């Protein structure tokens, strides 16, 4: 026995969460994969400096460089116009990851906000949920066409073609995909609001804002996490459909979804054309999913204590 008791340093919340998160193998693997993917698309183009939209102007050379299998000059091969697939994967990933993440965040934010409001405040429930019904019923394609027609040129003129298109796309995807999470969150909140701990918080006069932030939200984290992971995949694919229809980025501008879409035509002859973008999208979604799992466990005090 020694008389000096080791006093544990007071542990911070984020530290606790991080420690718990680290023990989750899947989450750590996901984090590493995602970080690698981000490095690949952000730093990659500085190392691999081929222009992803470059088409060889010399016809003879261009014919020779079409649909090449992986070589040292083109580690992932080339597409039907002789464009370098590695450069296209990098450029495409930057957009796809950004669009996927931002659009998902917008959609989750709107969905959670509306879901919580509708579930918690009875007065708002009717209006908000009927609005959700309306959005669910709207045909997506005409809605997007109208959005693009009304705001497309203006936003592009204001922010430049790239930033403008990006903003339009994430906005368009965000505002047309929040309804599922809103309905799910509302359902959970309806049940949670009658539970004892919420009643208790309310009865001691806790303001609604605090009840929602401290007691309701932490308990709807898991469905939100699921919606978020599924949302990223959805957003990446929706972007490719938008661009395909001419509502998004210019036609020669690559994104993962677009590469996959274009590759399907060549799937039998050149399977690598669909393999790389398909793999990238799946890896992104899988890693986000595992990170989500880890985060959910880490945020759950009942698990963290164990």
């Amino acid at each position, binding site marked *: 026995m020694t008389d000096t008791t080791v006093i544990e340093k007071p542990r911070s919340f984020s530290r606790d969460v991080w420690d718990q998160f680290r023990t989750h193998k899947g989450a750590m693997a996901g984090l590493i994969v995602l970080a690698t993917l981000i490095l690949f698309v952000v730093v990659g183009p500085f190392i691999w400096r081929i222009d992803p939209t470059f088409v060889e102007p010399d016809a003879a050379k261009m014919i020779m460089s079409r649909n090449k299998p992986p070589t040292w000059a083109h580690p992932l091969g080339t597409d039907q116009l002789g464009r370098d697939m590695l450069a296209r994967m990098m450029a495409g990933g930057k957009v796809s990851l950004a669009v996927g993440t931002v659009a998902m965040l917008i959609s989750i934010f709107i969905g959670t906000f509306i879901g919580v409001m509708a579930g918690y405040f009875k007065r708002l429930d009717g209006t908000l949920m009927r609005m959700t019904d309306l959005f669910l019923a709207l045909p997506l394609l005409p809605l997007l066409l109208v959005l693009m027609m009304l705001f497309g040129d203006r936003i592009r003129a204001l922010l430049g073609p790239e930033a403008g298109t990006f903003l339009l796309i994430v906005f368009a995807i965000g505002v047309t995909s929040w309804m599922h999470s809103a309905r799910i969150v509302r359902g959970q909140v309806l049940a949670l609001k009658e539970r004892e701990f919420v009643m208790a918080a309310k009865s001691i006069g806790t303001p609604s804002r605090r009840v929602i932030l401290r007691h309701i939200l932490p308990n709807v984290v898991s469905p939100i996490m699921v919606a978020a992971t599924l949302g990223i995949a959805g957003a990446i694919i929706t972007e490719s459909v938008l661009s395909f229809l001419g509502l998004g980025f210019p*036609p*020669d501008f690559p994104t993962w979804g677009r590469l996959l879409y274009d590759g399907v035509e060549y799937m*039998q002859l050149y399977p690598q054309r669909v393999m790389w973008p398909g793999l990238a999208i799946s890896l992104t979604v899988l890693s986000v999913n595992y990170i989500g799992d880890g985060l959910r466990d880490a945020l759950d005090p009942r698990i963290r204590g164990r």
Partner: protein
Amino acid sequence: MKLRTALLGAACAFALAPAAYAERGADGHVNVLYWQAPSILNPYLSSGTKDVETASLILEGLGGFNEKGEVIARLAESVPTVENGGVSADLTTITWKLQAGLLWSDGTPVTSADAKFTYDYCTHPEGGCAQAARYEGIKSIDTPDAQTIVITFDAPKPNPYQAFVGGTSPILQAAQFANCLGAAASTCTDQNFMPIGTGPFKVTEFKTNDTVSLEANPNYRDPAKPAFATMTVKGGGDAQGAARAVMETGEFDYAWNTQINPEMQAQMAAGGKGVFLNGFGTLVERIEMNMTDPSADLPEGERSTVAHAHPILSDINVRKALSMAIDRQLLVDVGYGAAGRPTCNLVPAPELYASDNTECIPQQMDAAKALLDTAGWTDSDGDGIRDKDGKKLSILYQSSTNPVRQDFQALVKGWWNELGVEVELKNIDASVFFGGDAGSPDTFQKFYADVEMYANNFDGTDPEPYLAQYMCDKIPGPSNQWQGENINRFCDPAYDALVKEMSATADLAKRSELAKKMNDMLTKDSYVVVPLVDRGRLSAASNTLGGVVLNTWDTELWNAQDWFRVK
């Protein structure tokens, strides 16, 4: 090249194969795939290719066109000409004689009154007839007896084979459609879905935009035909799926418009289950130059109108250099394979009207650069983009959404970049681009871009109405709700004069000369229209299907009565 020769050989072999299987319905069932499914079987209410071609299995005209573009008789005894006296010497009347003993599929006789009725049906002011243009310039139609139809024109008609010739203007049965005139046309669902006809087949079931089930017409005029007892025309999917169903899985016997990339064409053709058939018509993929300023800085209503000339494309040297920088053969090799060939002509066929202009085919990148240099377009500020008087060679290039068009855009962009021209690409959903909605900024008529690419053709074999589209008074603009056909905003009084001259000329040699002259004025003399590819039709036929002859002048199913099963 090899592939194409092989295909042509195969197509010839089919054409020559003996059709000596003389019993109606002996060959069972045949499956046809139209990936754009037919919506209606009355070609007067929809002129979509899918609808017209499927309907041609059931409905026929007095005449039609064969695969060489010659007029052939169908319901008529023979084709009336000036020589045989069927067409009057002053070209104002044409007299058709029906074959004797013709019956509709319901067993009633076909008479000249049916033709007269069809004319009344399509020219009814409230009917919204899609083929009204085929009956233009007709003063009257007389039926002196049950077999004779006399069409009298307002003015001499150099090409009298418009009304009742080809799949687009067949004869309807007067008895069936009697209550469907004018505004009532769209209430006649049964008639529009199951028309009674004289063709080799009759409809047994019609599922709109999905499947047409047909059976051999018991009253078809040739008692030995058709060889097939039943036929299914299925719709849906896309061109690649359609090609696959014939060439790889063998589920279907014939697939329409299987336009897929050349490499897949080669791979599927190698599979040995079927062949691709190709034929060339008048469809030309082209880049159209905007002669007016599409700048977004101009107020709405003045963009892309004749009020402002285009800042850079008004210079013929720029247009010429842009055309010279393109390698048309490469475009064909990448995009169309056997279904395309490079062209410099707006009117690539028929032979009579096709100019001998081929100088654009070899790519001339260096000459194009030199041309721009001498014209004063140089890169004065070192940013890689040529400029002159403060105007940069910067171009917005739009087209409709379609994988081949997007590949073309990327390739052309590469060449133009090499030339020192900055290019921004834009693709627009086809339903918006071709929709012609005056409220949308993205229609091809509004042309809010510097250049745009699409394909167009003309009906039948006479290019006169097609060439007349480039007259000054057909320029789209706010005053006509952007509905004109002169997309380039090309305007040349000398051209207008030629159009007028052609409309008054009956002599074929003279017409040919005029048409070639107009074609050249638009293409190699001015580079307002930059033709790229003469696009053929490419369809797929199973090796077990015989008698198929691809026809680009009429409907593809024009000789379905001669199809048979190869055993």
